[in-house]
């Protein structure tokens, strides 16, 4: 058994047992589901920013499209649970297909600027087309049954958690395979030195486009599950503030690491839950967290631990995008 697989089994096992200890710490199981779904969203950012070095500051667009894809299909087509998740996931993919051609032409901060600006278009659509989307108020719906040809059953919060866990671990498995594949190694190489990758005969645009589609699909899946968790879809899931949260979660946990997004999401979601009950000033804490994270530990928690333990462990898929080989900024 490889060390990576052992880590995965331990973490997977702990997550599977987590609901048992939650009553002791007065946490609801739905909050741990939220942790997993935010971790999924942060992984979608991780693929682009952590691995490939592209400032993916608009992934809330795909997440929100997933949410609305699920909500709209339930409200207007009365689909069941699995179908709603699939529609949401597909909505994320379609979002990637629409925005991808615009985003993949540029790099560096310009990519970030385009991601922020284009990401916001879906927010305004959801916000403005009130007759379909409910506008600012969002859309409520009842969580649909899981429907198979002969069996129908509903998901309570506990069973929902295990569905979310299965999806999360599935995506982790996907990342673990892709990260060491030629495709994944090429993405890391693009982050370090894109010009060189092109001079190895590789059309980097094509790799970035595929990475974007994988990222948007994963974000769509996370968003669809999030809407089904809270039985609600609302425009702020599409907003750039939401994108910022995803980037923060990823950086906080450790850019370019497999488990970083989970660590970041745990701190973010549970921290928000606890602080919000104490003071209404959560947003100041959040802003301070951004600043502290950037100035204090840009490699994130897992990145810093790995750097401390072993410099070599950081190499390749596991290091924060840092100053060593910045992409040509500004004019690129």
């Amino acid at each position, binding site marked *: 058994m490889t060390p990576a697989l052992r880590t995965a089994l331990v973490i997977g096992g702990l997550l599977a047992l987590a609901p048992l200890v939650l009553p002791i710490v007065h946490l609801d199981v739905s909050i741990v589901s939220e942790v997993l779904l935010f971790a999924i969203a942060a992984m979608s950012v991780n693929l682009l920013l952590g691995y490939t070095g592209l400032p993916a500051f608009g992934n809330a667009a795909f997440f929100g499209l997933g949410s609305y894809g699920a909500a709209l299909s339930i409200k207007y087509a009365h689909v069941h649970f699995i179908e709603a998740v699939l529609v949401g996931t597909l909505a994320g993919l379609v979002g990637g297909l629409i925005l991808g051609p615009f985003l993949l032409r540029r790099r560096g901060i310009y990519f970030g*600027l385009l991601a922020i600006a284009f990401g916001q278009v879906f927010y*305004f659509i959801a916000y403005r087309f009130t007759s379909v989307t409910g506008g600012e108020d969002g859309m409520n719906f009842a969580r649909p049954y899981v429907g198979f040809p002969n069996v129908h059953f509903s998901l309570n919060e506990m069973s929902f958690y295990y569905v979310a866990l299965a999806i999360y671990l599935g995506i982790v498995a996907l990342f673990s395979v892709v990260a060491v594949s030629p495709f994944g190694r090429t993405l890391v190489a693009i982050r370090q030195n894109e010009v060189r990758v092109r001079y190895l005969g590789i059309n980097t645009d094509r790799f970035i486009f595929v990475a974007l589609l994988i990222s948007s699909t994963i974000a769509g899946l996370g968003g669809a599950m999030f809407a089904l968790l809270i039985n609600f879809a609302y425009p702020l899931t599409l907003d750039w503030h939401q994108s910022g949260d995803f980037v923060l979660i990823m950086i906080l946990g450790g850019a370019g690491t497999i488990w970083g997004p989970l660590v970041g999401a745990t701190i973010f979601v549970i921290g928000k839950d606890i602080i919000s009950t104490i003071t209404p000033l959560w*947003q*100041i804490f959040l802003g301070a967290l951004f*600043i502290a994270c950037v100035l204090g530990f*840009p490699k994130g928690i897992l990145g810093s631990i790995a750097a401390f333990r072993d410099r070599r462990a950081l190499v390749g898929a596991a290091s924060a995008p840092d*100053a060593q080989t910045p992409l040509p900024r500004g004019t690129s």
Partner: protein
Amino acid sequence: MLEHLGPELFNGLVLGAFYAIVAIGLSLIMNLTGTINMAHGSFMTLAGYLAFAMISRGTSFWFALLVAPLLTVIVGVVVERTLIRPLYKREPFYSLLLTFGLSLVAEEVFHLIWGANGVPLSPPANLSGTVQLGFMSFPAYRLFIAGALVVAIVALALFLTRTRFGLRLRAAVQDTEMIAALGTNTQVLYMVNFGLGIFLAGIAGVLAAGLLGLSPTSGNALLMPAFVTVIIGGMGSLFGSIAGGLLIGFAISLTTLFIPAASEVSMYVLMAIVLMIRPRGLFGEEGIFG
């Protein structure tokens, strides 16, 4: 409906001038240091609130219009020197993330001091009427804003093209190392450049407060159109920012007239069309990635 066309086009012009001036500030900062200043909207809001605080303590609007942006510049420069400067050597998205955090803190601080709801900042009485010009009458304050923004943009253009410092600034945008080699202190350039961007944001912030309202998030509402302006105009182009701002202003005002629900979406449609024809924006330059 067509009788509203004239006034709406004028509104578009005023709105476009706001977008242009905010976009120019963003573009200056982005070009020289690679920082996407997500807190730019917060600086606008800050200038608005400072002006509001001064006016409600009895100073004149004109005094506030000049001093509030200057105070905002001081805050901006302190932020740049202490928080953003350490990030210049790092990947640019770190400064994006940091200014994003700043904007979250700022929003909450405004909220705490001035409340969640908007506060009124009324323009001076002699600008509250309308002015009859030819066949149309214009609200005097809007006319004044249009004039003030044009003056600010022209002054900036003169500063960048006619003064020694402005020329150095533009040269530094091309090649920071060369300027350092010529003996110009790069850090001073960074600081002044940031201050200049914030000053423009401050002026826009005070003027906008009297027109579009003032609340903890009012500056951020102008930020997104300003990003779109930078993209449409082409990064680093002064002229592009002006053209882009006006295009968006007209696009928004016309859709407001005909399809109100699509008013924000229209600027994205415009952005998509421009990028399809010119991937680097209207006045952007060619680069390695195409």
